């Protein structure tokens, strides 16, 4: 569906996307995971044919985004990072106006609007103005709007940034259903839980480059240990404890500002070893590895900083 080879985006002297390769296949959910400023949105804009690549190759649906922008965009559904709804129009009018951009007839739009508002659970707000809707409702409306042309690929740039947990889950649920219906999803996120929940395959982006690629499970297996022991000490003992912990058998040790992470096969065994050293942490937590740990390993930094 989408294929990039050596794709580059430069803004003056600044390189936002530095020669990345990736491929997205039909029906999958593909993610770009990375912190803010990693080049995710620039990549998305190039896929959305609203930004020309500065170098490399990009083909979308087998077409060239620079020459065939309108044809490609007619088959994409775009959910931008910032809502671009017309706040002064009603929910229904927003879908009408947008459907018109795709040259759909009034009847087709009316029919699809009924389905789509039902799908995003906004049917009862159809005649309301958009302005007073909550952030989560606006997001769902944006999703409904992006589906008006029955797109083959949906591009979602940070689909749940700024939403409360409940609203995020509502959005994830809808996106999951779309995937089940065979829509190809391409999304960017800096939330590792979002990437784990939604993506079949993802690339970890950092500083304009792709650091790793695979399914969430593969990435965790490849770059992290099954379990992680998180330890918290009193601030004045933090550094001393960190040094002493070097002797505990762990595949890797990360000393963060507030916590120490030990990457191990068995967290409980490791905790016993820590106690055997005479170290008593304030809190300890044994958990499974996540994409956050993968990111930390690959870049030495945390995702949401």
């Amino acid at each position: 569906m989408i294929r990039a080879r050596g794709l580059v985006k430069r803004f003056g002297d600044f390189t936002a996307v530095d020669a990345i390769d990736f491929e997205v296949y039909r029906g999958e959910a593909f993610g770009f995971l990375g912190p803010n400023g990693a080049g995710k949105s620039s990549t998305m804009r190039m896929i959305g044919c609203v930004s020309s690549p500065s170098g490399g190759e990009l083909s979308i649906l087998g077409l060239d985004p620079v020459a065939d922008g309108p044809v490609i965009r007619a088959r994409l559904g775009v959910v931008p990072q910032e809502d671009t709804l017309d706040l002064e129009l009603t929910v229904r009018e927003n879908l009408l106006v947008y459907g018109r951009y795709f040259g759909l007839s009034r009847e087709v739009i009316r029919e699809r609007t009924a389905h789509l508002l039902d799908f995003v659970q906004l049917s009862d707000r159809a005649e309301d103005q958009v302005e007073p809707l909550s952030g989560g409702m606006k997001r769902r409306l944006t999703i409904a709007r992006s589906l008006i042309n029955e797109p083959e690929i949906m591009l979602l740039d940070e689909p749940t940034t700024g939403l409360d947990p409940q609203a995020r889950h509502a959005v994830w649920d809808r996106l999951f259903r779309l995937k089940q219906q065979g829509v190809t999803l391409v999304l960017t996120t800096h939330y590792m839980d979002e990437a784990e929940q939604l993506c079949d395959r993802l690339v970890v982006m950092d500083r304009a480059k792709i650091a790793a690629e695979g399914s969430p499970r593969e990435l965790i297996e490849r770059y992290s240990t099954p379990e992680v022991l998180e330890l918290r000490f009193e601030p004045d003992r933090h550094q001393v404890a960190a040094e002493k912990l070097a002797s505990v058998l762990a595949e890797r040790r990360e000393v963060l500002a507030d916590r120490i992470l030990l990457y191990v096969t068995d967290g409980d065994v490791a905790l016993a070893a820590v106690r055997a050293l005479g170290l008593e942490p304030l809190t300890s937590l044994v958990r499974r590895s996540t994409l956050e740990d993968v990111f930390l390993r690959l870049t030495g930094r945390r995702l949401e900083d």
Partner: protein
Amino acid sequence: MAAVTTREAITRPPLSGAVFAVRELRFWLTNYRRTWRGSIYSSLLNPLLFLGAMGLGLGTLVNKNGDAAIGGVKYLVFLAPGLLAATAMTTAVGESTYPVLASVKWLKTYQAASASPLRPADIFHGHMMFVALRLTMNCAIFLAVAAALGAVQSWWAIAALPVAVLTGMAFNTTIEAWAITRNRDTSFAVIFRFGMIPLFLFSGTFFPITQLPAWLRPIAYATPLWHGVALCRALTLGTATLGGALIHVGYLAGLTAIGVVAGNRSYRRRLYV
């Protein structure tokens, strides 16, 4: 529903820019449906107030001094075509500033449109069409009110309508090409105060340019509003000459074309980053 079923409808060969621009025009019309009543009232009130106060009120004073300087007609008749062109200018400037910034910055409806098949130039041209429509409405209402007040002497006045619209478009395209590059509305106030108001007052709307000091006249002749005023007036008074008309229309059409070329470029730069 949102699967890959009805593809025929959306994978037709690419359409021409005009079709896309009309889609953007329809967006503006949908929006306008909410505010058209209010806009009609102001379109009616504006000529009534100005023609009433200046044309009839001030006009009786002016005409007491004789009408030689204004071409031997009543001041009301002299004023109406000038105000017609000036109305086109103010309408166009209003439509080319805040609505454009709102679309690209505050509401980001332009970004929404550019995620659809529409290209930046289509979005620009669609808005131009909407402005042309608004200008036609406003100027037609103005002419009707002027005619009802007895300010129109010749059937040629009907030809002043497209001229007034063209005057507006010269302002619309050039200002819109610039407005799309803005991030804040502060400079709009500067345009209004130091651009539009001086033009409104000194481009022959209220008195002939010949009343200006000699050194100022060339500046007035160079402004787009003067060309609009001069041709509208020549048409409503029935004194137009072909040569003069061609110069005025050529000037206004040329400026409009420059604005379109500049806008195609600046819309693209703004929406395709």
